[in-house]
């Protein structure tokens, strides 16, 4: 029964698996267009539907898969690094990341893929990420320590927290995901036919 590491998998193989999964991750990001900063920013303006489709399809796939595997006894998801929820720092940190997304046009994973394939702006973004992390480390004790530990809720399952069955939640989430695809397709079409300069359409390949 999963997870295989640490009980049934030695550390070296585990790292190798991390490397292989990473290859798949980088490939999918590049092949889906996630190294194109304008396609990423498009999620916030509605002129590109790639991010929403890839992101929610991945979430739905993983959610359904892990839910069924847990039900069937193939994996105990609570034995994995099931994240603890600290709602206050996650909300504040998320706001900082949201601002960084709109200004910088990447997130860490996409910036690494983009930098690997020659996007110079992504190199600057990554330099920024390191500066930010170092800054956080240096100022941790007097600036972030208390905030980061605040709002601790432990390991919380969202459907359980809502008081509904997990299967029902996954169904509802899937419906919402599909609705978002339809809405984004209409939104992209609106941009294309009414608002977007031809130069932008060509650049984005819409």
């Amino acid at each position, binding site marked *: 029964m*999963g*997870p295989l*590491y640490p009980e049934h998998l030695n550390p070296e193989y*585990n*790292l190798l*698996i991390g*490397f292989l*999964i*990473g290859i798949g*991750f*980088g*490939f999918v*990001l*590049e092949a889906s267009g996630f190294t194109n900063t304008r396609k990423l*920013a498009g999620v*916030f303006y509605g002129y590109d539907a790639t991010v929403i489709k890839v992101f929610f*399809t*991945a979430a*739905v796939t*993983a959610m359904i*898969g892990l839910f069924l*595997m847990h039900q069937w006894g193939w994996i105990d998801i609570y034995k994995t690094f099931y*994240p603890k929820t600290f709602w206050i720092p*996650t*909300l*504040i940190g*998320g706001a*900082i*990341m*949201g601002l960084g997304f709109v200004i*910088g*046009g*990447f997130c*860490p*994973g996409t*910036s690494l*893929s*983009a930098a690997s*394939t020659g*996007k110079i702006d992504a190199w*600057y*973004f990554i330099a*920024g990420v*390191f*500066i930010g992390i*170092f800054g*956080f*480390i240096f100022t941790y004790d007097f600036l*972030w*320590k208390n905030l*980061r530990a605040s709002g601790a809720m432990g390991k919380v*399952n969202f459907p359980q*927290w809502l008081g509904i069955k997990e299967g029902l939640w996954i169904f509802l989430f899937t419906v919402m995901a599909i609705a978002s695809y339809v809405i984004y397709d209409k939104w992209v079409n609106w941009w294309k036919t009414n608002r*977007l*300069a*031809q*130069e*932008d359409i*060509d650049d*984005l390949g819409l």
Partner: protein
Amino acid sequence: MKEQAKRNRYINPYLGGFILGILIIAAYYFSSEGLGSSGGFRDVSIAILDKVAPHYTESNTYISARVEEGAHTWLTFELLGVIFGAIISAVLFGRLKWSVGKAPHITKKKRLYLALTGGILWGIGTQLGRGCTSGLVLSGMALNSLSGYFGLISIFGFGFLFAFLFKKLWIQSKNKKA
């Protein structure tokens, strides 16, 4: 124009999402890890800092527990894979070349400063919020962890809010002159 059309060829987004979902399942099944990015950046940062100032890293309460492992972590090896995977795909699709990604009306210099600024914000935000779009949000949601949904609402909610202020960075209206 034809060149550009070729460079803009991508795989079906639903297929991309499906594969990504399978990779998340695999990461949890084999390694009990979420598919993350910022964690690897943190581990590399710690390793660099430990080379430069080993006494400091041992006394810093945020990172001291992680110093021994340094960059020898699952997340770092995963990021190493990301580099290879992205290059393989870019070669296959003919996209491997030096360029600055930006809207046509933005100067290169401006874009680079903005990218640097955005990166700094992410560096801070990921450490405070315990992960980024992949580790905190996507991998969190895969387990239906509350943290993932807080991350989703926060990153994208505030993203939409801030997007109004920075619209000119990404698109120009058809009616206005470029």
